[in-house]
């Protein structure tokens, strides 16, 4: 199975997958990489199941028939974190796009993951919607995972976009705080899917895992998963459409504020 570093960092899989193995007698090996790379691994046949949070890349993969059995399973949100001083005053922004615009127009630094992760993809969408980007010397592209990116932002007193779970996990060592959150632009949805063309036991095991996460016992466990005293992921509300990358959890947007 390939998943994103944000899922891996949260510790979710380390906690719930042993339950799956105990119940179904199937062991799962997890590769944690960026969303884009996870899709690559699936396409190259190195993994059978994928769990990512990059709707744009997922949509492309779906239309290329590179993935199948697509279902949204959980969501949380991204937050924009920065130094307490908040030089770009984004705490007063109206939307995430507005916050990004304020950052671009200020002298503040923004630290970008610069990789193929879902977080980076969302960041690029927000710059596109804001129709602005910070000047080259104030946009630091670090090409690292969320942890490394947060560290650089903390040291340089800059802003960055992070998923809430990873931020909470690293929070105590950072000089950053959440400055803007909420709104549909920052909803972070996770979907599970499998590789098409599997047969036999490979197909059975892959489907078992995907179903367990989407509809089975896994749901309950995702919902009750807590890290550092905080709930990390919300399960996809039943009845809410979940088969398309662009789906958002109905009626749950208020939850993420």
């Amino acid at each position: 199975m390939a998943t994103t570093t944000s899922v891996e960092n949260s510790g979710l899989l380390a906690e719930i997958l042993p339950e799956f193995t105990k119940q179904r007698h199937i062991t799962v090996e997890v590769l944690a990489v960026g969303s884009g790379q996870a899709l690559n691994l699936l396409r190259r046949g190195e993994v059978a199941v994928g769990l990512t949070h990059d709707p744009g890349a997922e949509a492309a993969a779906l239309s290329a028939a590179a993935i199948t059995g697509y279902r949204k399973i959980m969501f949380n949100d991204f937050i924009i974190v920065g130094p307490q001083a908040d030089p770009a005053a984004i705490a007063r922004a109206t939307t995430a796009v507005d916050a990004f615009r304020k950052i671009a127009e200020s002298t503040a630094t923004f630290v970008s993951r610069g990789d193929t992760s879902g977080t980076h993809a969302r960041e690029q969408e927000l710059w596109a919607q804001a129709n602005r980007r910070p000047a080259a010397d104030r946009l630091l592209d670090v090409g690292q995972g969320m942890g490394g990116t947060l560290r650089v932002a903390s040291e340089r007193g800059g802003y960055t976009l992070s998923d809430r779970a990873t931020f909470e996990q690293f929070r105590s060592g950072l000089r950053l705080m959440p400055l803007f959150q909420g709104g549909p632009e920052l909803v972070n949805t996770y979907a599970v899917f499998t590789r098409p063309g599997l047969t036999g036991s490979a197909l059975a095991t892959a489907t078992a895992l995907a179903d367990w996460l989407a509809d089975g016992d896994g749901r309950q466990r995702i919902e009750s998963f807590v890290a550092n005293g905080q709930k990390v992921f919300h399960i996809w509300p039943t009845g809410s459409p979940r088969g398309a990358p662009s789906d958002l959890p109905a009626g749950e947007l208020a939850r993420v504020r």
Partner: protein
Amino acid sequence: MFAEIGRALALIVHRDVEVWQITGVSIAVSTSAVVAAVAIGLPLTYVLAGSGPRVTRVGMWCAHSAAALPTVVVGLTLYFVLSADGPLGWTKLLYTRTAMAVGQLVLTLPLLIAVVLGALHRLPASANEALVTHGVTPARRMAWLLWEVRTAIASATFLAFSRAFTELGSALIVGGNIRGATRTLTTYIALEYNRGDDARAIALGLILIAVALTANGLMHAFMTEQ
């Protein structure tokens, strides 16, 4: 894969901007680290060598041990020292090229000391005695004796450069792989290889090998000349 290698060579030949920028950072950081190591290491080694056999023995032991430090350990230690909460956090040097050079200085200085100290120690006592008795001043004595071991110094310098240039652990942790600033050949390859830009990664790998082989070749040439 061969198609990618071909594309990689094209990038090098056509002076792809990013490839040469990244190479430039690697060269700048490692060169300044080695220059500092030589500037600090030669006088230090000379003093150690002149302080008697016991100091020399202890010095050799320390240098050999320090030379074996894993790069990530040096990087991690430097990270904690330079981070905002650390004792030198006020310098704001974390994630700068200076910090990377300091890390590489720590990695290469012991190497230099070990090699040069060994060479100085092997000089017969009559060498220094001849200098002293002919009234050569302490500063000039250092110059004369270091010149006697110049091939060891050259060999050690290239060895140090090779180690600095090819190391990853320290550059990664204290540098932050920031594009245009602290991204080096090694950090790029380590972090970017899975971005799908294989051509560039291979190009940088080829440059890395070429420089490492050249530095090692020069080191070997000076070593066997001794």
